[in-house]
């Protein structure tokens, strides 16, 4: 069974990577939020915005997630800058 994820990008990160969301088949060796972030950051132009860990937040299934949190098939993973609502 293939491991498929839905990945979302918001705000300045959405603009940097040039898309709002994508379906992703997870490559070998990517089992945590942080590993997914590193994998995506290596895609090249624009995607290196994901490598600036201090300015990137992540959510797994719509809850804030640490880099070491594991990911599973069917997850919805989101990357975004620190929030500025209110």
């Amino acid at each position: 069974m293939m491991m498929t994820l839905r990945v979302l990008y918001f705000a300045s990160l959405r603009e940097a990577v040039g898309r709002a969301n994508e379906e992703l088949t997870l490559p070998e060796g990517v089992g945590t939020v942080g590993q997914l972030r590193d994998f995506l950051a290596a895609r090249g132009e624009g995607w290196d915005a994901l490598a600036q860990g201090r300015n990137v937040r992540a959510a797994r299934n719509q809850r804030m997630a640490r880099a070491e949190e594991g990911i599973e098939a069917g997850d919805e993973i989101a990357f975004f800058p620190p929030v500025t609502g209110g």
Partner: protein
Amino acid sequence: MSVSVQEADFDVGAEIAALSAGRLDVGAVASFVGLVRDANDGSSVSAMTLEHYPGMTERALEEIVAEAGRRWQLLAVRVIHRHGALLPGERIVFVGVAGAHRGESFAACEFIMDYLKTRAPFWKREQTPEGARWVDARESDDKAVGRWGPMGEPAASE
């Protein structure tokens, strides 16, 4: 429903009245209204757009409200946050908390705002004379939320 995420404006007086309507045990309603200012970080701001993460936004706000309910004895809570295009002077957010006494109502209202500022997935984009820009997160907001101690999982993805 105690949490709403919407484009539409809201009626502050009606929201505050609703927090104690039909009950006589409420002695204190603390509330907060956040507004778009026409200047920020040294630039004038002519308009603002609030992006959010539909689904997670509601969930995050509901969790913040639930956590406030665990920390203080509250009688009613209401949170409204707008998204979309807003002009200076327009309302962005409303938080209202009803309790028997003022101490818990004030504390919970400020707690909810502090957490909302750092945990609810909203992002402000300002239109300035130098062009559009995403608002940077404030260090003072991280400091403000730190006062309340830990709540669930931390936000950093590092």
